[in-house]
């Protein structure tokens, strides 16, 4: 069984991004980048399935510029068997990503495709569902547990107000929640070794997909920030403030 994992290169989750002075876009020049956290969960799950003997090969794929080699190296260091870079502009939108991934699925024929449930830059949460639709595959989104038996995967999904369990016929598309697992740390020797592994590069233009942006970015701005208020010294003072200043009857 082959598993394909999509890993996106995003601004590190600890970093608060800046906005360009003219408001035309965010300014990510020189900012620390890394693998999208949910995609690390996706990859970790694929690796665990391989370690359990369920999967035989794990292929990581990333779409973007040659800079994306770093997240693919990271994926190889975590344990992916192969890495594919689909070279395109950095700001592909989910529908274009899904179409490009579909062409890789057609070529690689994986039994399971795992993506992150959401990229922490665009916060779209769309690509996995789109890919599943384009392939006419079943989908298990926001997955917190996965179990494969024969030609079927059982997925527990995190939904508003609880969880839901589905059974999907393989091949299927899964999107990973953070709770799916705890991704492993990459050991330095593995990172060194991963440097020597080849990364296959495919030019997106060769895949016959229309990459035109459907959504035009008009401007970016900073949300109104909450102002820090005051410190109170006691429970009594807190309650006084709430009662007298805010009219909250507690």
């Amino acid at each position: 069984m082959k598993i394909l994992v999509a890993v996106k290169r995003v601004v590190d989750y600890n970093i608060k991004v800046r906005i360009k002075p003219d408001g035309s876009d965010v300014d990510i020049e020189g900012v620390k980048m890394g693998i999208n956290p949910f995609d690390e969960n996706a990859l970790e799950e694929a690796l665990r399935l391989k370690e359990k003997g369920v999967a035989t090969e794990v292929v990581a794929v990333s779409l973007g510029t040659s800079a994306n080699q770093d997240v693919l190296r990271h994926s190889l260091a975590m344990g992916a068997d192969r890495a594919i870079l689909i070279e395109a502009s950095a700001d592909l939108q989910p529908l274009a990503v899904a179409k490009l991934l579909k062409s890789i699925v057609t070529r690689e024929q994986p039994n399971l495709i795992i993506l992150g449930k959401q990229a922490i830059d665009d916060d779209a949460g769309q690509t996995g569902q789109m890919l599943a639709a384009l392939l006419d595959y079943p989908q298990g989104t926001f997955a917190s547990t996965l179990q494969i038996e024969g030609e079927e995967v059982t997925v527990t999904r995190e939904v508003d107000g609880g969880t839901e369990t589905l059974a999907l016929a393989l091949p299927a598309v899964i999107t990973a929640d953070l709770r799916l697992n705890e991704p492993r740390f990459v050991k330095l020797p593995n990172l060194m070794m991963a440097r020597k592994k080849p990364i296959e590069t495919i030019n997106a233009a060769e895949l016959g997909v229309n990459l035109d942006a459907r959504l035009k970015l008009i401007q970016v701005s900073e949300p109104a920030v909450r102002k820090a208020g005051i410190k109170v010294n006691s429970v009594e003072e807190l309650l006084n403030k709430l009662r007298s200043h805010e009219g909250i009857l507690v």
Partner: protein
Amino acid sequence: MKILILAEHDGLQLSSSVHQAVTAAQFWNSPIHVLVAGHSADAVVQQAASIHGVERVVHANAAHLAHPLAEDIANLVASISEGYDVILAAHSSFSKNALPRLSALLDVAMISDVLEIKADNTYVRSTYAGNVLTTIQSTDAVQLLTVHGSNFTAASLGGNAEITSTETPAAFKKASWKSEVRSQSDRPPLGSAKIVVSGGRSLGSAEKFEQVLSPLAYKLGAALGATRAAVDAGYAPNDIQVGQTGVVVAPELYIAVGVSGAIQHTYGMRDSKIVVAINQDPDAPIFQVADYGLVADLFDVIPELTAAIQ
């Protein structure tokens, strides 16, 4: 021009967020239709028909829609999408699952979690965990979006929409619903509670989370919330997680107890009217978004606070 709203419900009760979606849809000043997909969900159809501003309720009734799969919902909406210029739903785990699938079936881009509708095809949404507001324009003929419910007032009752029924495409064969677990609680629902008491990893255990925070929540008639760290540690159930990857709340009063205030958490609570933070670290980032901060050990002050409330 016509607008279609995909309604969320549990078979008996229409989600209150549908009322907010109706208000959002009114931006286009065009007829609004609401699709209710379910099995024997006649009560829901009636509730949808009574929302002021809804012209028609389209009812899809089929056994396989009792626990609808995203695959079936997407196929159903695609089958009736002809003639609709805007398709929208309130942002929730239901719509997040189904609408991107529809988006690919229709080959149109989708705009997730819209905070503000600026023009017929121009929207404001947040990106980078709420650190950036992004204005985007969709160039597609069909506008497909989810809206951030709490940013839109709920449409009132008093409507009397026409009800029509529609054929449901055959069930998607490659997936099946097995079971669900709904968390039971006698507290108000987190998403709409007037007061929320949230606890972090610092509570230390599921028992203490309950023992320390429940009495306070009870006295205040508040919902309980939690940080991801508290949920991951097993102190609180996952459906009460507040934040970028949990629930977004905007209560009158938000009390953060032993919460550090990571941006992924504050994303989910910073629209609260008043924020109170209790943390023993005077430099905890939560104080930067709190109206009232109390630097103290939560195990001392929460019982004291609970006792002081009538």
